[in-house]
């Protein structure tokens, strides 16, 4: 096997769906594409035939892929899903900001900042050690039950808060990895110019760190985009909850399929984009030589 490179002899990197062919003449490439196409069609055809010809398929189709039910369930699921999207966007903005603050606190050096660092580490360790769903239940049902004056009682608010807290802890670690990936000499150079620790973080380390961790942050986006649905356990009428309501009323599961389709419509392009960006990023780094 010769040395692998993600850039082929035409200077192209990986495409949207995987690596381009890496060697060979034009005809061989065309033949390769033909083989890939034919084998894919044959394979998928075979699997479909297996499924569709099985004895249980009519029942499955009626339960999960019923067009009539799909149309009936769609409006409610779609409007619930729109709430998912809004939750995702709002939570992501908050997470990116809060996590950055936590990561910066954690990156401060010197004994004077020990209490702050301890606080950041404790926050990260505790939150990461608890299942998200547990946090959602705790805050979403627990806090409103306290009936504290002036404290919001909305399940949506507290469910979202739980998600933001949980994801902030994970994302803070992503940022931290990025900050630590910036060379020590950059920190030294900034400090030698008289910049304080915070200025060094803000102007020198964090901007470079963020560039290094954008792929990891994008992965977090994909994950959060699905996890917002977890607030359904609080009874919040988002997409999954809407599908569940439809299911309990009709005993048909096509509503869940409608929700599945909606999630895939957002998460698959997001995942493809993440891959594309990561590959492009890697190629750029290789081009600079490090």
């Amino acid at each position, binding site marked *: 096997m010769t040395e692998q490179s993600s850039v082929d002899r035409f200077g192209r990197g990986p495409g949207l769906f995987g690596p381009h062919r890496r060697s060979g003449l034009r005809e061989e490439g065309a033949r390769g594409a033909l083989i890939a196409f034919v084998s894919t069609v044959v394979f998928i055809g075979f699997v479909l035939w297996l499924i569709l010809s099985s004895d249980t398929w009519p029942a499955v189709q009626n339960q999960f892929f019923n067009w009539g039910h799909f149309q009936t369930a769609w409006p409610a699921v779609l409007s619930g899903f729109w709430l998912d999207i809004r939750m995702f966007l709002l939570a992501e903005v908050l997470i990116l900001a809060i996590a950055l603050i936590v990561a910066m606190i954690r990156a401060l050096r010197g004994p004077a900042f020990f209490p702050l660092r301890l606080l950041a580490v404790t926050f990260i360790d505790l939150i990461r050690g608890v299942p998200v769903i547990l946090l959602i239940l705790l805050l979403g049902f627990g806090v409103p039950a306290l009936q504290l004056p002036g404290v919001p009682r909305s399940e949506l608010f507290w469910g979202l808060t739980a998600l933001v807290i949980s994801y902030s802890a994970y994302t803070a670690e992503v940022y931290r990895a990025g900050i630590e990936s910036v060379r020590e000499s950059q920190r030294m*150079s900034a*400090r*030698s110019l008289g910049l304080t620790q915070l200025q060094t973080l803000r102007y020198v380390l964090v901007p470079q760190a963020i560039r290094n961790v954008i792929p990891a942050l994008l992965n977090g986006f994909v994950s959060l985009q699905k996890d917002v649905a977890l607030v359904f356990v609080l009874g919040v009428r988002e997409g999954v909850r809407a599908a569940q309501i439809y299911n309990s009323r009709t005993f048909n599961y096509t509503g869940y399929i409608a929700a599945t389709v909606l999630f895939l419509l957002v998460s698959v392009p997001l995942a493809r984009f993440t891959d594309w960006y990561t590959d492009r990023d890697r190629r750029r780094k290789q081009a*600079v030589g490090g």
Partner: protein
Amino acid sequence: MSVPKLELRNVQKAFENKMVLHDVDLVVGHHDVVCLIGASGSGKSTLLKCVNLLFPIDDGQIFLDGDEITAPGVNPNQVRQRMGIVFQAFNLFPHMSVLDNITLSPRKVHGTDRPTAESRARELLDKFGLGDKVDEYPDRLSGGQQQRVAIMRSLAIDPELILLDEVTSALDPELIAEVLNLIRNLKEDGMTMVIATHEMGFARDVADRVCFLDDGVILEQGPPDRIFRDPQEARTQQFLQRIIEAGRL
């Protein structure tokens, strides 16, 4: 006798129990150019980083214009605002343009407004022949250009003193001259400098005084003519002999 610009008294520094600076005494007068020579690992670089307070010293004292900068309670950021240091590996900020690299400290640390800081930076760049690189990013510059920008970055805060840490060691041979010429210009302008270097010819040419460091001690110091022609210590003689054999002097 007037107060020297920089004075080190009995400075000691260890890393993980390994003594790097044993007992360093050094006096640098106003407008003096002092070159530190010696083998790799003799402590030249550590010495400069101690003066810049990037490494805390274990014992001894360092004075800048008579003020002890190693005293407890001294804010290192304020000390660093009075001196510049330039590193072997340039260490420019890769995400900033040349202009932003140079103006970062004036604007954020010294409170200079952006137009003033930028016009001062442009002046520096023009003076040292990089006026057309204002908006370039560091990875688009040659090593020699990057190092000149790094020197200008340290000049932009009008330092009382500049520390140069092997600033030509990472450069291709053909790029060394442009950096050395810039340093000669600084000497003509009267800048006080402490220079750790492997360029013996340059040291002989530019230094008012040469200090030979060996194993964390300044073993011998004097005017370059004397150190290079008539070294007194056996270790200095050996070191210079090796340099001559390597064709570097």
